[in-house]
Every structure is written in C-alpha cells, then in structure tokens.
C-alpha cells in the first residue's frame, strides 16, 4: 500500500499558510508585523506563497525604533519592492516627540518597551483588527501558552488566564468593536525549524545573520554592537570581533554571538548544537523572570 506522507517542515508550512489565509478571510484589516528579523521574513515568504499569484492582501507594518541596524532597513525596502506589497512604517521617535512615550535613561536604556505605545497607536490609526506576528511558542515560557488566534481586549491586553479554547483548526475570530486579535502562524515552529525552512526554501536573509567582523563590547554575558545608540560606560572599550546575530531587534538590546558560521548550513549545525536559547541573547528578556509575560499583557508583540 502506498502511503502519503508530509515531512515535518511541509506540515508546518501548510499549517502556517492555513492560518494566514484564515486571518485574511476572517478579518477586515489585517497587517503583518514586520521587524526585519528572520521570523518576520519567513512569515512574509509564507504570506506570499499563501496568495500567489495574487499579491499579499494586507500591508506590512514596521514599528521603527530608530535604533535599527541599517542592514535591516535596506533589506526591508528591497523585499517590499520585490513583492509589491504595501509598507506602513510608524516611528517610536514620533511617539516620544508627541509626549506619548518617555525615553529611558542610563546605560541599559532601550526603546524596546516604548515600541508598545507606537504599535498600539498604529493599530488604532490603521483600524487593524488582526496583527500577524512571527512569535513562536518555543521562544519563551509565556509564549508557550499562546493561541494561533489570540484575543486582545479594547485595551489591547492579553488575559492569559482566560483565553478562548482553541480546538482543531476552528479559529474563533468573533470580536466586539475596539477589540483585535494577534495571529501567530509560526506558533509550532522552533528556531531550528526556521533555519531548516530557510535552507529548504533558499530564502535570502540580511547578512547580519552570518559571520562578519564588527566593533563590539562585552557587557555581562552579552556582546553588543558598537553604535551611535549604545551608551558606553567609561570602562568599556570596543573591540573587533567575529560575530553574527541569532535574533535581530534593536541595536541596543540585541546581543551578538561569536561565530564563524558563514552559511545557512553552518548556522543549522551551530543552532542544533547550541546550549543556550536564542532569547538568551536579548537584554529585554533579562530584566525579570516574567519580563515577557508582563510586556505581552500590556500589548507587546
């Protein structure tokens, strides 16, 4: 007897495409939250596959902290051009200028938390009822409890103790005025799945993910890239290092890893052997044991 069999990557791909199409069908104004990181790049790739030969039927939304790696912006603009998709950008700087957000001070200052203000304002302005994000359940313990379709109340709050049960693939997108959903098509993917999929699909990535030389400083367990946005302490002297980034967020809080991995295959080997989670390189998660849970409740990505 002949058995039909889908490999794990194809099952994950099919599941993600199903979720993306479901979001397009059940909502009026979805957006895809695009950060320039590998997960949002994979999401965009999947959205392209979900609707081709039609264009992606919703815009990408980038919340720009002003502290981006220049490579991220260049990659983003090329991608948007290639796919013919609409891009909306909202700036954290505007929120600060309008007095809606206050800049943090000190050596560990970051605009990570401030993004939530800009994000929620943008969702309201664009009348967004579904924001698709690239978050994965394997990233962090609070994210392990997320639904594919995650309800947010009129204050954009996540109520982890009172989530709607999610059965089979029957997604309940019913909402009252003012409420919205966060949609997570990559829920069941792990970091390794993402890399294996990037290899299988030959998806182009910003070169930040590959080994390169760069001026960096060591702070605690972290290696941070020297930039205009990074406040250097007196005793900190930048050094030339051979590094790559496992995740890409703001320059102020994304840690690099020392790595010679120059190709996707090298990275897959490195990730498979890695003994530290990728969010271990993120200063934003290290603020407290429940840093992610607290931010998510308030409406963070």
């Amino acid at each position, binding site marked *: 007897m002949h058995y039909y069999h889908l490999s794990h990557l194809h*099952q994950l791909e099919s599941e993600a495409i199903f979720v993306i199409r479901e979001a397009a069908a059940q909502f009026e104004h979805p957006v895809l939250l695009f950060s320039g990181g590998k997960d949002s790049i994979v999401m965009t790739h999947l959205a392209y596959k979900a609707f081709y030969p039609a264009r992606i039927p919703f815009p990408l939304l980038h919340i720009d902290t002003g502290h981006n790696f220049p490579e991220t912006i260049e990659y983003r603009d090329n991608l948007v051009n290639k796919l013919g998709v609409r891009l909306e950008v909202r700036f954290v700087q505007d929120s600060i200028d309008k007095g809606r957000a206050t800049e943090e001070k000190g050596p560990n200052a970051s605009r990570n938390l401030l993004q939530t203000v800009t994000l929620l304002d943008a969702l309201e302005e664009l009348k967004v009822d579904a924001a698709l994000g690239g978050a994965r359940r394997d990233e962090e313990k609070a994210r392990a409890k997320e639904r594919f379709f995650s309800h947010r109340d009129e204050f954009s709050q996540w109520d982890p103790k009172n989530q709607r049960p999610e059965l089979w693939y029957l997604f309940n997108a019913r909402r009252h005025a003012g409420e919205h959903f966060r949609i997570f098509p990559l829920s069941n993917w792990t970091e390794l799945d993402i890399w294996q999929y990037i290899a299988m699909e030959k998806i182009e990535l910003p070169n930040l993910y590959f080994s390169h030389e760069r001026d960096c400083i060591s702070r605690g367990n972290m290696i941070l890239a020297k930039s205009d946005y990074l406040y250097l302490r007196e005793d900190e002297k930048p050094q030339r290092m051979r590094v790559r980034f496992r995740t890409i967020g703001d320059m102020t809080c994304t840690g690099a890893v020392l790595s010679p991995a120059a190709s996707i295959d090298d990275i897959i080997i490195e990730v498979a052997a890695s003994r530290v989670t990728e969010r271990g390189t993120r200063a934003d998660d290290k603020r407290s044991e429940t840093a992610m849970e607290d931010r998510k409740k308030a409406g963070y990505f």
Partner: protein
Amino acid sequence: MSPPFNQESYLNMELLRFTTAGSVDDGKSTLIGRLLLDCKAIFEDQLEAVEQTSRRKGFSHVDLSLVTDGLKAEREQGITIDVAYRYFATPKRKFIIADTPGHIQYTRNMVTGASTANLAIILIDARKGVVEQTNRHSFIASLLGIPHIIVCINKMDLVEYSEVVFEGIVQEYKKLSSKLDVKDVHFIPISALNGDNVVERSQNMDWYQGPTLLYLLEHVHITGDENHIDCRFPVQYVIRPQQKEFHDYRGYAGRIASGVFKPGDKVKVLPSGFAAQITAIHQVEHGELEALDEAFSPQSVTITLDTDVDISRGDMIVRENNTPTVGQDIDMMVCWMNDKKLVPNGKYAIRHTTKEARCIIKDVRYKVDINSLHRNEQDKEIGMNDIGRILIRTTVPLFYDSYRKNRITGSVILIDEGTNETVAAGMII
C-alpha cells in the same frame, strides 16, 4: 542525542503531536521535563533558571517540573493553568507536546490539547493504580479520536520496581479500555524522576522487555492516521489576482481535509451540486506556481476548475461518487467549556470547516458521567467540563462526516453570540 542537522535527514523527518494527561502529582511535568532534558531540548539558560528556582524554594534536587511552568500565577500557586506547548526533536521525528493540566476543573484544556493529537500519554501513579481521573482522561482520548495511547505507569521506584504491581494496573486498565473505542494501547513502567524507561532503558526492571517511551514515540506508526480515502476540500479563500498576466485566474485555496486529489478528477461542489473537473492543483515554489500531480491531506494548495461556477469560502469540493452528509439536523457529542451553562433551545454561532452558521439546540439526549462512563438521562444540565449528547439544527446545511471517520469534517465549535466566547467542542456522531 542531538537534533538532526544534516539536510537529508531533516527533510524527511516526521511530525508527531501528542498530549499528556495525568492527575495532580502523577509526575506529568516531571516526565516532560525528563523527556526534554534527556533529549537535550532544555537549554543551559533554562536549566540555570530552574536550578536557581529549585534552590530558592529549598529543594534538595532540581525540580524538573519547573521547566514546564509558564505563567506567574502558575509558579505562585505551583499548578498549571493552561495548555502549554513544548517542542523537541530526535533524528527521526519532531515532537509537539500539548501539555495539559490535570486538575479536574480544566477538562476543557485536555480536550483542547487532544483535538490535534495523534497520541496521548496517560500517566498512572503506580501506588494508586487506575483512579477516577484515569477514566476521565481515557474517555476524552477516545472521544477525541486519538489513534494511539501510551499508558505510563509512573513512580515505579516507589513500589520497588514491582512487576506484580505493574501487571495488576495493566489488567485494571484493560478492563476500562474495553469499554472505550481505543485501538492502539501500549503500557510502559517508568520512573520519570530517575529516568527509568523514559529515554534510557531501566537497569531496575529486567522483567520488562518492551520499548522505552522515547523509542515508542519515535516508532509508533502514524502514516495511517490521516484519512486519505474520502476527498474533502473546504474552500478557505478565493484567489483572484487583479493583474494582466493572470487575468482569468480563479483559484480555490484551502487545506485538504482528507483524501487525495488529482488534476482531471471529476468533482462536485457543495452546496450547489455543480459538477466540474480539476484542471490544476498548485503550490508556490521559488516564487512561481508549481503544478502538482496529486495532493493530499494536510497540504495547503490552490485548486482550479474547468468551469466558472460560483464558489466561495465555506463551500466544499468533493469527489463525485463519495460525498459527505448534507444536512441541518445534526447529532453530536459536546464537551462544554464555559461557565455559562448550555441553554436548551438556545441559539449559538457554529463553525464547521471554513463555514460559519447559526444553530439552535433542539435536544439534550443525555449527559455522560465521565467517571463511571454511565449515561445520565435524568440530569441533562450541561455545564463547564460536562460531556453530553445533543441534537442541533443549523440555519444552513453543513457538509459533514462522522467524527470517527473524519476529525476535520466531523468537528464543530459553538460560540456564544453575546460574549463571543467558544463555549463547546462538538464531535458529530
């Protein structure tokens, strides 16, 4: 054992989704912690955090169950509130665990975790044997149509690794499972705390010749779990590019619920009943349409037909000579998941495949006492965590199969139209 990174192997890896069920203190979280630790799926920073917390709480050993604790309230109360998903991989398979709480009030979480699982691990404390909760968990696993069950008899270290105790529990469980519709049951004596027969073979139970838990998880035959006989394609989204190049393109996008479709197949579109022929089945590869020779569940594809009939989301494409039941009066088992009780003659929104409609509850036939498995035809009040059999009438016809035959076209959810909450999971009889 490290996860695979060699391309040939990971491109052929299978995916197994399983759920875990056990009563409070059966050691479920410890078992999952043990599986993750021994499969090297716990990272140093995670382990470090768990070690720190264990020390702070004054434990003499590292409490592996802390690995699966997620939310603040859960750590404060030392319980699990919601389904959490965990991931690990071996060179053969990738695993998704739906880790569901054992507390009685959270039956709805087990149903949720079970709905997409191929396999259920049911934990039994060797000192206690089969308890009420075991009935409940086994009944739910059978009701939700989970094809494979592994009964792990845990804490064997506390009964001196006794074969007699193990065999007694196996016999007791077989009596229970004979009353249920479960096909493939395995039994393993383990100690999650010490790791006996979880990933490594136990040195303490020479009398047990069977596989370890991990071996079984890697080798259970799952390719037959999908229904590849009855062709069902619920239309999810209609793709109409407004571009010159694809001017006349009209593709029906969706995920194949069951069966195998091929270009040239004679199909029927429900509810219109129009006959048509499949001209192409597409996926997108490297930015272009790729025509497939055949497509099967659970692939997401786009189908084009030879005739321009009016088809929209919620319609279903099926084979001409193998059609689902089309009807408005539907008999089903429900698990109730909301504080607001079922309202007899109440109206609810209903979702079935990609279709949304409304329905009225015409009758509650009986409630199941899930501890004794008896039908109760006197007390028909269905509240949170209750399971019962009901009859509904829908506003428009649904195209359905029995849940036993098809987990996708046989399942529904009911939604409260006032609160918008999902209040019930339904399995069509």
